[in-house]
């Protein structure tokens, strides 16, 4: 369970809406890619996650993960060429879902790092 979902335990309606949004975004991508994105982003944040070993991955997945790793601290520096490479691999609908999933993964890591669940009494 993510830090945000944990924090929302006292508001079942809002919690359900958040869970649905997260599930819809993740469901639009391959489950394996979603797991790798979350692992890569968590690793950038120094959260307990084993770094992804890119060597066994295909070129398209490596491009996506390189992009995802820039979201936490370098989102304004991502170039048109980097974005185009992800679009070429995932297509436009895939790129939209990827953008949402990656940005949400970053935000969820940050919510965990500030201890949101504890602050929310969860």
């Amino acid at each position, binding site marked *: 369970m993510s830090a945000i979902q944990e924090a929302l335990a006292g508001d079942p309606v809002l919690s359900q809406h958040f869970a649905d*949004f997260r599930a819809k*975004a993740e469901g639009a991508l391959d489950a394996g890619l979603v797991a790798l994105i979350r692992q890569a982003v968590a690793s950038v944040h120094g959260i307990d996650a084993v770094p992804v070993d890119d060597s066994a991955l295909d070129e398209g997945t490596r491009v996506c993960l390189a992009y995802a790793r820039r979201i936490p601290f370098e989102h304004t520096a991502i170039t048109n060429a980097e974005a185009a490479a992800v*679009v070429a691999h995932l297509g436009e609908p895939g790129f939209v879902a990827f953008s949402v999933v990656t940005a*949400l993964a970053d*935000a969820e890591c940050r919510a965990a790092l500030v201890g949101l669940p504890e602050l929310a009494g969860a």
Partner: protein
Amino acid sequence: MSTIPRVSSAIPGEPAHFGSVLAHQPEIAQSFFALYGRFWGSDVLAARIKEVARMRNARVTECGFCRNVRFDKAVAQGLGEEVLDDITDGYETSDKLTDTEKAVLKFTDALIYDPALLNGEARAALQRHLTPAQIAELGLGVSLFLALAKALITMGLEPEVMDRTVLPTPAVLEAAE
């Protein structure tokens, strides 16, 4: 940072903007707007407080679209430009922001920038001014503001120029409840 859309509009005849680009993924769009409407429609945390956090995020993440939008519910709760002008570095000394708003801004900075900013004193102030339920809602909001801003920026949906625009506050979608 690009102001050239990196993904096309999925709605014929419309330019690329958040809604028309998200339309590539209708289920995600529907779910997001239901969540965002529910969040803004809840009065557990006042719209004015949510807007203070949203504006701070807009300025730190450099989201030009977010920076120029104002939600009417917060404006009606007295959040005018003279207050918003103080949501910049050094807000701690503002005489226009309340102590609650300053505690919220510190939490926002910690979540979107550096978790170390939420030190013992800042954490205690947040818990003194907000209930756990309000903090949960604030945490969701700041997380969504951050993710939305980063998605907008990285999809190249930042406006080249944009006037300050007051929009209706997102509302609960009855069909989604």
